[in-house]
């Protein structure tokens, strides 16, 4: 299965910008927008009028200037046009938002929750789902949900856990690697080649230590490519050839990026497919940095938003979740000039005019326009044992 590809726009960029503005204006007037032809449109219309005047607090990671700008400059005004005041609440880690919801639960709160919407993923979602923290059965009622392919396993399950319509997809994530083309013009294309590279260039490779999310994802990829025992044999082989002979590991993706930026290692990695673009714009990476894939594909993942069951403004939150799936907003997000993150919408379900919104985005050397084969995720239950095994066998 291929992810939606962006085709070079050229002159279409100008006309598409006009189309974008028109689409936003049209899509956002009054209540409704892209209403499907079935009965749910009635209840959604009710939801939208109930949502008018509400203030929706969206707790999300606050350290990415470009995503913040996207939300502030595109999403918040769009929500305003629907009569909703969207407030972005920055946190350092999604777990902080989840911890607040749990604390509210401990205090016995049922409907005054100060967290209306959370940008969430993976383990945090799974833990909340187990504890029944999230609003249930609402995602399939959203009109724009028809534009999403819920049969796609990378959307229907979040890191191996079925979403059960408790979280709405919002954005795509794909695990990509990066190298400086000025230093490594020909990066490896498989784990085997990576090991060869390490043999020829000892001390130039490392990855974040699990349980860091990026580090765990890297280990998962090796396991997916080789099977668990062979994967750990591979990591053992790699260890003495690594940076600091594998005695020290960066603790986070940010640290790995620092090492890469300062020329200490030759590769870095991230679940954010636009991270090279972001880092180049930030001035962190040299302009010659290029993303690449291993084993012909990427581990693909979706970013979601979920609504705590005790949210004070669940109607507004649902309307915002629907808004995030508007083709116009998704197209803006996919444009490398804004973020360059692929969309979660299924191109087969878009109307021709909607599809055109995605065609005018220019290409960028810092973004992969083709994410190759989609690698399936491991079941969630295997993650913790993998992390522990890594800590036992590789770290100590």
């Amino acid at each position, binding site marked *: 299965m291929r992810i939606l590809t962006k085709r070079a726009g050229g002159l279409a960029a100008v006309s598409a910008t006009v189309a974008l503005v028109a689409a936003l204006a049209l899509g956002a007037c009054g209540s409704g927008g892209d209403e499907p032809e079935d009965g749910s449109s009635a209840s959604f219309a009710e939801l939208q009028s109930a949502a008018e005047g509400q203030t929706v607090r969206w707790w999300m990671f606050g350290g990415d200037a470009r995503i913040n700008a996207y939300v502030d400059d595109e999403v918040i005004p769009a929500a305003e046009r629907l009569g909703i005041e969207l407030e972005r609440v920055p946190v350092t880690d999604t*777990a902080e938002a989840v911890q607040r919801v749990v604390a509210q639960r401990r205090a016995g709160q049922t409907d005054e929750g100060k967290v209306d919407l959370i940008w969430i993923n993976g383990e945090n979602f799974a833990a909340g789902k187990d504890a029944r923290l999230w609003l249930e059965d609402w995602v399939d009622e959203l009109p724009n949900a028809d534009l999403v392919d819920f049969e796609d396993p990378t959307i229907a399950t979040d890191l191996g856990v079925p979403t059960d319509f408790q979280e709405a997809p919002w954005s795509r994530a794909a695990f990509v690697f990066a190298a400086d083309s000025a230093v490594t013009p020909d990066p490896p294309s498989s784990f085997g080649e990576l090991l060869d590279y390490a043999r020829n260039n000892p001390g130039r490779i490392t990855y974040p230590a699990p*349980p860091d999310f990026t580090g765990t994802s890297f280990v998962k990829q090796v396991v997916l490519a080789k099977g668990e025992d062979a994967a750990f044999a591979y990591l053992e082989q790699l260890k003495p050839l690594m940076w600091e002979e594998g*005695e020290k590991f960066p*603790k986070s993706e940010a640290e790995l990026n620092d090492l890469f930026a300062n020329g200490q290692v030759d590769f870095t990695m991230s679940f954010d497919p636009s991270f090279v673009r972001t880092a180049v714009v930030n001035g962190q990476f040299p302009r010659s940095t290029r993303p690449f894939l291993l084993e012909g594909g990427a581990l693909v993942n979706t970013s979601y938003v979920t609504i705590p069951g005790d949210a004070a403004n669940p109607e507004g939150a649902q309307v915002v979740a629907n808004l995030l799936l508007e083709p116009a907003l998704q197209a803006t997000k996919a444009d490398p000039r804004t973020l360059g993150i692929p969309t979660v919408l299924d191109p087969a379900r878009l109307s021709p005019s909607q599809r055109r919104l995605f065609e005018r985005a220019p290409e960028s050397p810092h973004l992969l326009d083709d994410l190759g084969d989609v690698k399936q995720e491991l079941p969630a239950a295997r993650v913790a044992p993998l992390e522990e095994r890594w800590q036992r066998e590789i770290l100590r």
Partner: protein
Amino acid sequence: MVPALGLLAVFYAGALVGALRVSFLPLGGNIGDASPAAWQALFSDPAFVDALVFTLRITAVSTVLAAVGGVLLALALRGRGTGIRVIGALPVPVPHLIVATSAVLWLAPGGLADRLLGALPLDLIRDSGGIGVIAVYVYKEAPFIALLVLATMGQSLRGREEAAMVFGAGGLQRAAWVLWPAIRTPLVLGSVIVAAFAIGAFEVPLTVGPNYPPTLATYAFESTQGDVIAGEGRAAAALLVSGVLATALAAVAVRLARSVEGG
């Protein structure tokens, strides 16, 4: 006295009780549902013991060095002008995390020190001995202790020192008989505060400490990075252990100080 104690009892102690409850009931509920699972997981984890030992070592070294450094700094700064005293206290208002980040900027491989000197002879960031952590703590806390101690180094102390000099007391004797009694209490209390802080804070070891072992507080923080709900229980338990440790240390220090004071 009552308002202060009242505030502390209601708003702080109440929160602590809540934390204790979290370690047994991460999701809330009735006492009947309480489970010691978090505590069991904590005590059966070999990493916990390693973290405990490592934390104690880092704390001991950092506190002693900060205390000594703080007194020396205070002696160098007393009686001097505002400008130089502000410089000497500069690390105090800077958050620990910023100092740690600055340390990484300077001392990490590829950092400024590397670029200046070609290469650093010593490994200071993420080294297994925790030297980076100790360095950051001493850098931050020595000026803090100096601040506390300076408050007692006023003119009257000078007067007493001069009097002692007149009576023929040498430098070391003056230090033991005049200086020490004056600064003793803020120094001991300041050291207790520094030690308690080192036991309980996680940002610095997270940024510059070794991958293994973590400190108790870092261990607590990392517990919440996996399963956030079960991890909370374990983190609360680990931090409670840290708190009890710090309190025990403080009690010992205070008892020692009292016996010296003769009270």
